[in-house]
């Protein structure tokens, strides 16, 4: 029936459909309902946006590239600066004789833990991404 509605059915199939419709009143009723749906939807269209949208479309896409590059650079810079700051802070704390040894140890352990977590998560993400056979499948 879909093929007949959309004009994608050959002569032989159309004749067969016609025969089935004549033999089956309930099929005929459904056919009429579907024809009405087709009649209505064929008078509908997607609403067009203002023309200016097309004039600025490419510029907007281009700005997204720029922002993407900006975010990557900002993130890289922030990670490097933050890591350096943390390292220097740790160095100062370790060198400071007034801070108890147990606190220094705790800070060192916390830093090592954070690094392990970061590396572990990053590695897992990377391996999952590389081996996931469903990564391109729409959920």
């Amino acid at each position: 029936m879909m093929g007949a509605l959309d004009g994608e059915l050959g002569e032989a199939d159309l004749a067969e459909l016609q025969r089935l419709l004549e033999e089956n009143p309930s099929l005929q009723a459904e056919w009429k309902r579907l024809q009405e749906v087709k009649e209505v939807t064929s008078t509908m269209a997607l609403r067009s946006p203002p023309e200016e949208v097309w004039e600025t479309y490419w510029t907007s896409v281009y700005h997204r590239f720029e922002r993407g590059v900006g975010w990557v650079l900002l993130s890289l810079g922030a990670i490097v600066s933050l890591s350096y700051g943390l390292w220097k802070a740790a160095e100062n704390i370790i060198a400071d004789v007034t801070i108890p040894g147990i606190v220094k140890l705790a800070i060192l352990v916390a830093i090592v833990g954070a690094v392990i977590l970061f590396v572990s998560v990053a590695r897992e993400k990377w391996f999952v991404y590389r081996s996931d056979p469903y990564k391109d499948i729409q959920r």
Partner: protein
Amino acid sequence: METTLAYSLPTDERALAARARSGDLEAFGQLVSRYMQRAYYAALGLVGSHDDALDLSQEAFARAFRARHSLDPERPFYTWLYTILRRLCFNFLRDRKTRARKLEEAAGWLTDQARTRASVYDPARAAEITELRVLVATAIERLPDREREVLVLKEFEGLRYREIAELLGIPIGTVMSRLYAARRELAASLVEGHNE
């Protein structure tokens, strides 16, 4: 709305795609200009709002450029872009917080510009169809995403079954069964409308 056949590859598209793949922004810009309307309307049919359709279609192009290394110049650019676009749209629909917003916008993305077309041959029937159109537009909003997608590609983009199948990477039989399920839902909404 311009519709380029999904399975036919324009002669210069291969060259543009190859240049875009190597990072040529100008070539990519030409591909954007060529397919922006089609991408926008495809997104509009899926998400049902102008702002979201514009945002998602532009984001699809931006992601396409970032993923340009997976672009095969021997394949139609739009088919590749559409896989990115539909994933973005479906994720967007999944994440959209409330269905209320969706229903609020029902029929806002559809236009009855074709009313004039109907009124040419039968004004009385055209008036009746105008009423039915509201019911159908609301029912389209309520369709499952994949059924609505096929319906939109068929009815509003005017693609043939083979083109839809290629675009979605599904068999033609699945295209027809989704279309049938969608139209059956719309028919039910019309029956309800007639009964009220």
